[in-house]
């Protein structure tokens, strides 16, 4: 039975990675999951310098999901290279680094710093709704997305994968812009912008007012966008948004994703990633499917 898939020349031993920002750099979940058994570990967004992130309250629970406005707190690329990459290598994990920035210069700086690192794939986060500058601005305008993609691609030693925002009118337009700019793969979706109000305090629950919605509740939107993007461009897609079970993951694969990320579900169940992998294996056994690639995009 073959579970391995290929994302822009990078072989993943199975199609399951982690949602950036939900899994740190793997250290904390290492207690629950053998990181070398994952398709890859996708790390929390890292910038050129340390970012303090947003004030608290940073998370809120909503029906079937959650909002977050962490604001991309991260220790900066120096610490990341010194501490997190060696840890992940030691643990035997394939590595997808999520890169964030406020300007083109920031992104390029991080990408250049990573060029001699044992990193498999770069996921470029242009879709974080929780930081004022940069972030989502690049992710909501096809022209800006094209430009940043081109700039990053020019300097990247590893294949790049632009991470798309779902907060757009037409996801295919964004997917095309990223691919035209040179993105070797795409990942989607990042979070949907949402808001929660505490009616007793008559105030926003999040200090940032709005936050990014994730978890099971957003899955139908994510599956739709992955399907649309997969049918609009010819690069592999890592699909995500609400995946908590193997059934969820299979929906994304059938819609056209080559691999999937498990994000918020880790908070519901720290072994969610492994449970998804095992569930996919069970499905393949039950349906006598020899190669996972047979399922990718099989629903048209």
């Amino acid at each position, binding site marked *: 039975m073959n579970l391995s898939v290929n994302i822009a020349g990078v072989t993943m031993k199975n199609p399951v990675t982690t949602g950036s920002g939900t899994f740190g750099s793997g250290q904390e979940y290492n*207690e629950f999951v053998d990181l070398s058994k994952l398709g890859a570990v996708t790390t929390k967004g890292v910038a050129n310098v340390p970012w303090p*992130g947003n004030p608290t*309250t940073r998370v809120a629970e909503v029906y079937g999901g*959650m909002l977050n406005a962490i604001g991309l707190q991260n220790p900066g690329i120096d610490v990341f290279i010194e501490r997190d990459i060696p840890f992940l290598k030691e643990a035997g994990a394939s590595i997808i680094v999520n890169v964030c920035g406020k300007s083109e210069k920031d992104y390029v700086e991080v990408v250049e710093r990573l060029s001699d690192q044992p990193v498999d794939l770069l996921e470029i986060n242009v879709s974080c709704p929780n930081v004022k500058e940069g972030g989502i601005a690049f992710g909501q305008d096809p022209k800006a997305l094209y430009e940043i993609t081109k700039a990053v691609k020019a300097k990247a030693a590893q294949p790049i994968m632009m991470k798309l925002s779902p907060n757009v009118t037409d996801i295919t337009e964004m997917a095309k812009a990223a691919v035209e700019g040179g993105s070797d793969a795409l990942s989607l979706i990042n979070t949907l912008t949402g808001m929660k109000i505490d009616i007793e305090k008559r105030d926003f629950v999040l200090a940032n007012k709005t936050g990014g919605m994730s978890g099971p509740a957003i899955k139908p939107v994510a599956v739709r966008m992955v399907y649309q993007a997969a049918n609009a461009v010819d690069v592999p897609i890592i699909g995500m948004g609400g995946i908590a079970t193997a059934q969820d993951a299979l929906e994304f694969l059938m819609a056209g994703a080559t691999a999937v990320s498990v994000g918020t579900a*880790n908070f519901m169940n720290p072994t969610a990633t492994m449970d998804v992998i095992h569930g996919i294996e069970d499905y393949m056994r039950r349906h006598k499917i020899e190669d996972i690639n047979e399922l990718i995009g099989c629903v048209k």
Partner: protein
Amino acid sequence: MSKKQVMAEILSQTSLADGIYDMTVKAEEIAVQAKAGQFISVYINDKSKILPRPISICGINKEEGTLRIVYRVAGEGTAQLSSCEAGEKIKILGPLGNGFTQKKEKAVLIGGGIGIPPMLELAKQLSCEKTIVLGYRDSRLFLKDEFESYGTVVVSTEDGSAGTKGNVIDAIKEQGVEGSIIYACGPTPMLRGIKAYAEEHEMEAQISMEERMACGIGACLACVCQSKDIDSHSHVHNKRVCKDGPVFDAREVEL
């Protein structure tokens, strides 16, 4: 040591006071490792609520493999938890966080409101001389009797219906409580008062903090508090309450 997620059977649940519940669960793998001041993540049997509720460990029985939690109904999740009955199972993850670092010096244990329960296991384990200061809203002095078997208990109530009228600091002053180290859990304003009191009296103070959480294990960066110095993990002035805490040296954090 490692954290475990288990389906724990509820062995008993009773109400201690209006809206305050006392639950004991069977969770051997967590109980054998648990320390005073740690907490567990409690999942609610309602699929619309995906995040766990952090609840401090109030009692640990390693022989029986049980944990005791005492919690207040604060919203829908804890309300649903309070309607669970013995025999039902709940998903829990733990033990989480660092717990109190137990020292030998003469201790002052301070609990305020729903910060009282985690002090009980500490009171039981700390073998040194100690005074226990409990701050309540009114005369419903939940858990007070149990604390009395572990040390001298001093009480404050907001409405003055028992002990010193006022807060725990008022009680400490009025009732002449002394010691060289403080262990405390309670609402932020109380912790702020204790931090100031400890600085003034040059005492060590270990305070247990609260923040909204998602992962509960240090991965998501939801639950940070502000640290005085640049934190060695985050490289910014943020510490994770769930992993670096919930217990902090009061001098390390900004409140």
